[in-house]
């Protein structure tokens, strides 16, 4: 659905790849590309693929919720919505009307680190997508007004209601972020933002944000699919070339240290039948040396019936209904999360004992070769799937380009996962999961006595 995606982290989505490996020997295909930069600073990456007569234009603006100011959380995403409301030469509503009449599907998404916009359309309509994208990159403000902002403010508030407030356990994420990160940390608030901050966003905020972050020199446009490169370069130069360069964007490269001196136990009441336990440890950012080993650890702990936590809690003891684990790493920082939903009548304290014991077991005794292989092979296979569509390839080129500085990083990324050893997994389990954490219990309304406490049990 339109403007519906709101990715929270990229690494778990795009973080895996493979080279020729122990199993099957299927090598990672390279994605051939050509990259150049217009005089105004717009990066352009072209990837030809004539297998289907469609083409994707995927533009990443290098701004996300992490760039927001105090009191304006959710603004980067609200701004994303406004980008579909028309520009100087595109009346309100015409953006989508023209694209749909051309057979396009289009959308955008916002994360902590970046905002993207894409059109996926029959190859004859490429010029339309470029014209529309150039108009909103260069000429958004002349027709910007409070009515557009107010409308999308209401839409985004409903998006928040649908994803967060009216969603069981939906407010867990923002509760954890606030407890885990210091207030000055760019990941300490949720991408969707708070209702109060969404209410506070002004037309001046829109104008300033656009001028600061939506200049060609802060964007990368990938065109992937069925097109003629010479013709496309001409079009790109014609449509985007005249858009003036903006001031250089000062990019944040460091974040405040995340220090959790001792386990912190918090509780959140929600309209739910069953409580849920969330454990969160600070870890490392995407592509940091331990990032891939933490991804593998997540699969070893909770991926399927053989993974440690799932097997013990859900399969063997049957005291939990769900058990999940993931390393979520962004451009600037990362966290590792485990969450478990007890079966009806089961105490969170009993769940906690098992979680502790299973993690301690990995820390002390490590994992088997088979566990490592399963996790590596799962990562490996997922990689091919991302190459199946023009949009998948475009997003991957953009991701690597932004995160590691080159679009062509697929094989190096694959190698990260191939290099992980059982000893690495044991080591990162101790190094990160052996440390203090945030423990959130979401409980049914009025039942705060169900929360897990430092004493190790529900009161």
């Amino acid at each position, binding site marked *: *659905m339109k403007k*519906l995606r709101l990715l929270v982290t990229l690494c778990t989505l795009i973080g895996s790849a493979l080279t020729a490996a122990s*199993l*099957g020997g*299927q090598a990672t*295909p390279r994605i051939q590309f050509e990259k150049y930069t217009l005089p105004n600073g717009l990066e352009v990456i072209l990837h030809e693929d004539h297998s*289907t*007569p*469609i083409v994707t234009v995927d533009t990443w603006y290098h701004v996300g919720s992490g760039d927001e100011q105090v009191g304006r959380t959710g603004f980067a995403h609200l701004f994303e919505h406004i980008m579909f409301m028309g520009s100087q*030469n595109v009346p309100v509503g015409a953006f*989508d*009307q023209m694209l*749909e*009449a*051309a*057979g396009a*599907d289009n959308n955008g998404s916002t994360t902590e680190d970046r905002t993207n916009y894409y059109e996926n*359309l*029959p190859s*004859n309509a490429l010029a*339309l997508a470029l014209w*529309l994208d*150039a*108009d909103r990159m260069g*000429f958004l*403000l002349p027709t910007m007004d409070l009515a557009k902002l*107010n*409308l999308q403010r*209401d*839409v985004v508030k*409903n998006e928040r209601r*649908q994803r967060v*407030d009216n969603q*069981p356990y939906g407010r867990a994420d923002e509760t954890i972020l606030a407890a885990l990160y210091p207030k000055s940390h760019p990941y300490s608030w949720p991408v969707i933002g708070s209702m109060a901050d969404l209410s506070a966003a002004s037309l001046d905020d829109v104008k*300033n944000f656009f*001028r*600061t972050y939506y200049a060609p020199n802060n964007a990368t446009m990938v065109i992937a699919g069925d097109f003629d490169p010479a013709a496309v370069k001409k079009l790109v130069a*014609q*449509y985007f070339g005249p*858009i*003036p360069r903006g*001031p250089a964007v000062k990019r944040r490269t460091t974040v405040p240290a995340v220090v959790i001196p001792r386990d912190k136990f918090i509780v959140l009441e929600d*309209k*739910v*039948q*069953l409580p849920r336990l969330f454990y969160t440890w600070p870890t490392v950012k995407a592509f940091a040396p331990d990032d891939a080993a933490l991804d593998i650890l997540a699969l070893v702990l909770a991926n*399927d019936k*053989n993974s440690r936590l799932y*097997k013990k809690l859900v399969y063997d003891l049957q005291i939990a*209904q769900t058990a999940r684990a993931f390393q979520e790493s962004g451009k600037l920082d990362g966290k590792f999360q485990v969450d478990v939903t007890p*079966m*009806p009548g089961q105490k969170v304290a009993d769940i906690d004992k098992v979680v502790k014991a299973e993690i301690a077991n990995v820390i002390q005794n490590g994992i088997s070769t*088979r566990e490592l292989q399963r996790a590596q*092979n*799962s990562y490996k*296979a997922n990689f*091919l*799937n991302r190459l*199946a*569509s023009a949009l998948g390839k475009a997003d991957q080129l953009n991701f690597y380009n932004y995160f590691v500085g080159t679009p062509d990083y697929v094989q190096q990324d694959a190698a990260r996962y191939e290099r992980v050893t059982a000893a690495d997994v044991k080591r990162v389990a101790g190094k990160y999961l052996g440390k203090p954490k945030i423990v959130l219990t979401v409980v049914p309304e009025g039942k705060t006595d169900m929360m897990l406490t430092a004493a190790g049990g529900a009161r």
Partner: protein
Amino acid sequence: MRGLSSTSAMGVIALAAIQSTVFAQGTFDRSKPPELGPPPRVALPPILTRELPNGLKLLIVEHHELPLADFVLLVGSGSTTDPASKTGVANLTATMLREGTTTRKSLEIADQIAYLGINLSPSSSWESSTLSLHTPTAQLDSALSLFADVALRPSFPADEFERLRKNRLTDLLRLRDQGPAIANLAFPAIIYGGAHPYGAATLGTEASVKSLSVADLQSYYQTNFKPNNSTLIIVGDVNPAQIEQKINALFGGWQRGNVSQPTYPDPPKAAATTVYLIDKPGAAQSSFRIGSVGVPRSTKDYFALSVMNTILGGSFTSRLMQNLRETRGYTYGASSRFDMRRNAGPFLASAEIVAAKTDSALLEFMKELNAIRQSVPASELSRAKRFLQLQLPGNFETTQDIAFQLVPVALYGLPLDYYNNYVQNIEAITEADVARVAQQYINPGSLAVVIVGDRKSIEPTLKAINVGPVVIRDISGQPIQ
């Protein structure tokens, strides 16, 4: 940098405006969208058909872009074959396929899926049960052998079933947390009633799930999972002759059987438009499901309905989305669809609406459901037709896309040239067709309006607008005793 000084920001904008003006007078006029050439000719991949001696049909499409292949075993029986007191049998039977075979235990199957790096997923729907395999071709033989074992030799271990039963009962308990899920269950229960299989819950009810036994699942499997009731869809980097041989070796011994299709009673006659309100105290949004019994997939009005629904609520620029989201901001999304099945599935319009606008939103829904019955402007008709026609190539991009497109071909017996004729069939739809099907199939006077939300705050306003009587129902859509 957290923001620009206003001076430099103004400078940027002024420059932009100048550039625009200069350019408009130069080599091209930015104010006019580019003229597009004709849409690309779409060469849809040929579909090969085969049939094994035991009656298993194969649909094979070669797609050699990547070393990947997709297999979908489509068994032509699903939840509508559940015995009345045993709802959930089809769904749990499919779920149990991965929980053990005569030679593999549940944990071994999971181990092999992860080790091979494949997806192997069972699922079930109203009239079909499926087992899907997505695999890199490097693992093809191992993956296929596991796929066939799971499909043909499930052992339905009692301990695994007890675990799944507990889990399913917990799923059903947790459904109460979700307004949209409650609405999705209550709506068909209300429009189809208890006697029609489309009114039943595919996941089962607490009572039915508690009453089921392994024998029920085995019986369901043995009756319905037959080669002559099944189609195997194969798409990917495969050689048709070789893959047919492999499939024959793996599936050739599967024994035929007599499979009977369920009979469907006529759905109850629609009552005058009624608001069925289900209480979800404190809900931030009201979940709307508005509709009636629609049409079967075999309807001769399929293409006219596709175009009409695209205009009403089937695309971003559709009337429901534009009105309720892009004009009024009442919701994050509003849509409508005809869920076409072997028999007449539901027509429904839906949205999650901010609680305070529940009454206003219902009035807008009713306005649009009336307005679509009037004439549709040519520009809107044309956009909807282009949208449907031109999206076709994108629906055939990946192996999974193609396999997905072949499911209705197998399930509803569509002709093999169905997609080849799709563009011209859409092209033939006129304004009169759209008006006719809207008038025939959307009847604002006899709709079920199911709303799950905070009764205390929304009931008075819903009564006040008087779209229909307001009736309180429980979370299963049943009258409250």
